[in-house]
């Protein structure tokens, strides 16, 4: 009779107690699977939001542009580069940036003029979906501008009002034009809210006198499964002499946040599981004391301490295994529900249709993201905690002296 068969019999002998122990472990495991997948969903949504609101998965610039952005350090022939990237399955959108002054009546504000490739930009980011009032840019309305929400307030303008834009073109001459507010954006990101001034690319290049060259090319990966590092290398090969950076390099703060979110979940796991460890320790100790005479007889019959320890350990391992299986099913189901239905945060006052976090727009529905890691990490930690908690009862059973044990009462 091997250790596991005996362990199984031992578990079945105290059904109620085993059920409570396994139940507690499985419940904690399932909740932690849900917790980890919610955290994964949250960080993923944060990254997705950042990427789809403006950043893109990668960006391509002329060397030196990021250190000193101006109208002279540009990506030459952006359309053919975008076409080359698109041929490889990427989505690419050339962008133009300039700084200037926007004024309406007596109010004025410094703005970032953003030239938008209307067809390509919507394949990379979703800014066009974030119009609060009015409409997004249109190729048929070259003097129609879409502006950030706080900028609209600063200039005291709304859809249909006019804005004078003033800047310095690439040849040093005065660039100025009159625009009509076509749309006002929702909260997108702090820089866009405060100073975003979107116009079609044709209008930008004509106004600022930059010929066929773009400030930036934003690139979106072919699918969410594409590996970022490999993609960055592939894009770099397609853009010789240019600077290709992934969002992790462009936004190291966000990358660090995502990385440390994982470490945070381990701390949470340890806190919750230490309570489970106590439950396991208690149950196992009760089992050992209950069967102390049994173990004494086993040892008297010649069973070595290692085998006794193995027997107790097998019981703990079997308990953990059953609990993990139940937790995987229960937690998986919970997470699956949270991934598909989401948790509506608007009831907590997130307001409007977009909540903000750290200056970035968020959908108010919190979706979990059930990844293999979200299941394996809580369960592996659970098993590890149980095995550590079982050590003491094991040792206790192993070092029993047969004569005393048999007379124990």
């Amino acid at each position: 009779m091997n250790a596991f068969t005996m362990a199984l019999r031992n578990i079945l002998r105290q059904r109620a107690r085993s059920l409570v122990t396994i139940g507690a472990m499985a419940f904690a495991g399932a909740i932690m699977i849900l917790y980890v997948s919610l955290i994964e969903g949250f960080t993923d949504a944060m990254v997705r939001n950042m990427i789809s609101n403006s950043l893109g998965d990668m960006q391509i610039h002329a060397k030196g542009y990021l250190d000193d952005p101006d109208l002279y350090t540009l990506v030459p022939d952006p359309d053919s580069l975008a076409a080359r990237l698109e041929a490889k399955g990427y989505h690419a959108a050339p962008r133009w940036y300039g700084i200037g002054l926007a004024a309406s009546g007596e109010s004025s504000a410094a703005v970032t003029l953003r030239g938008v490739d209307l067809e390509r930009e919507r394949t990379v980011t979703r800014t066009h979906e974030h119009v609060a009032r009015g409409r997004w840019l249109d190729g048929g309305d070259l003097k129609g501008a879409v502006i950030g929400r706080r900028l609209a307030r600063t200039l005291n303008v709304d859809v249909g009002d006019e804005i004078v834009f003033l800047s310095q073109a690439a040849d040093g001459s005065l660039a100025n034009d009159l625009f009509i507010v076509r749309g006002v954006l929702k909260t997108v990101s702090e820089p866009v809210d405060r100073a975003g001034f979107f116009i079609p690319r044709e209008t930008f290049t004509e106004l600022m006198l930059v010929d066929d060259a773009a400030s930036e090319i934003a690139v979106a990966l072919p699918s969410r499964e594409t590996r970022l590092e490999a993609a960055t290398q592939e894009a770099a090969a397609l853009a010789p002499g240019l600077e290709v950076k992934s969002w992790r390099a462009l936004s190291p703060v966000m990358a660090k946040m995502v990385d440390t979110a994982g470490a945070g979940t381990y701390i949470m796991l340890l806190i919750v599981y230490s309570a489970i460890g106590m439950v396991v320790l208690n149950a196992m100790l009760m089992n050992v004391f209950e069967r102390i005479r049994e173990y004494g007889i086993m040892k008297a019959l010649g069973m070595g301490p290692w085998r006794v320890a193995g027997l107790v350990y097998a019981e703990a391992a079997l308990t953990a295994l059953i609990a993990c299986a139940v937790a995987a099913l229960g937690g998986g189901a919970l997470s699956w529900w949270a991934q598909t239905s989401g948790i509506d945060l608007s009831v907590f006052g997130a307001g409007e249709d977009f909540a903000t976090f750290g200056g970035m727009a968020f959908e108010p529905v919190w979706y979990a993201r059930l990844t293999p890691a979200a299941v394996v990490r809580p369960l592996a930690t659970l098993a590890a905690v149980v095995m550590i908690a079982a050590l003491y009862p094991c040792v206790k059973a192993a070092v029993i002296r047969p004569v005393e044990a048999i007379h124990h009462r």
Partner: protein
Amino acid sequence: MMKFIRWITALTALAAAVAMAQPADPVARARAILDEIDDLWRGESSRALVAMTVTTAHYTRRLLMEGWSQGKDNSLVVIREPLKERGVATLKTGDSVYSYLPKTDRAIRLTAGMMMGSWMGSHFTNDDLVKESRLSGDYDPVISFEGERGGRRIMEFTLMPRPEAAVVWGKIIIEAHADTRLPIRSVYYDEDGKVARTMTFTNIRSMGGRLMPGLMRVVPADKPEESTELEYREIEFDIPIAEGFFSLANLKRR
């Protein structure tokens, strides 16, 4: 630029000022000279036609502009050439500065945040263009050198900003001819004591009845290969200027 017109005018008149007041204390003397400059600026009016050449790493551009000034509060600069920017005007009345854009037929009021921005792509800032540089009010002047330098008899003023003055420069050193009191060179230092830009005055000739430098050149210290040159084609002083000339309404009418 009107500031420079005035500035040049003022320095030209320094000789008379110094002749009138010659206090023994060098600090008081320097202050007296600069006070005279301020006083001389007041109540003056002028008109000038100036050609500006801007040379940068990325472009070279030439502009012809006409400027008027009256007192310390009013000035107006209108671009005459090139055609693309013809009619672009910068107006200062009192504390307000407006930029009139004929393409849009709108006047924009410049905010404080824009004052250090480049004016018309040159190495002058909007602040240079419009600020009433009350040197004696904002700076404590001393005559830091008087005598021969480079074969010329010169006077050197060192201007340190007063603690309470809201000025952009940490120090200004002005060199002038000792006899004519015409400026030769002025060096502007930033708040860290580093040279920010150097202005040189050459081509001294008689204009508008006064002897003055006809060419002014500014070179930014961080980009020594770049420069902006102002060449005075015409200048007149004490001209009659109609009421309401320095007004937004007139800006649009012009």
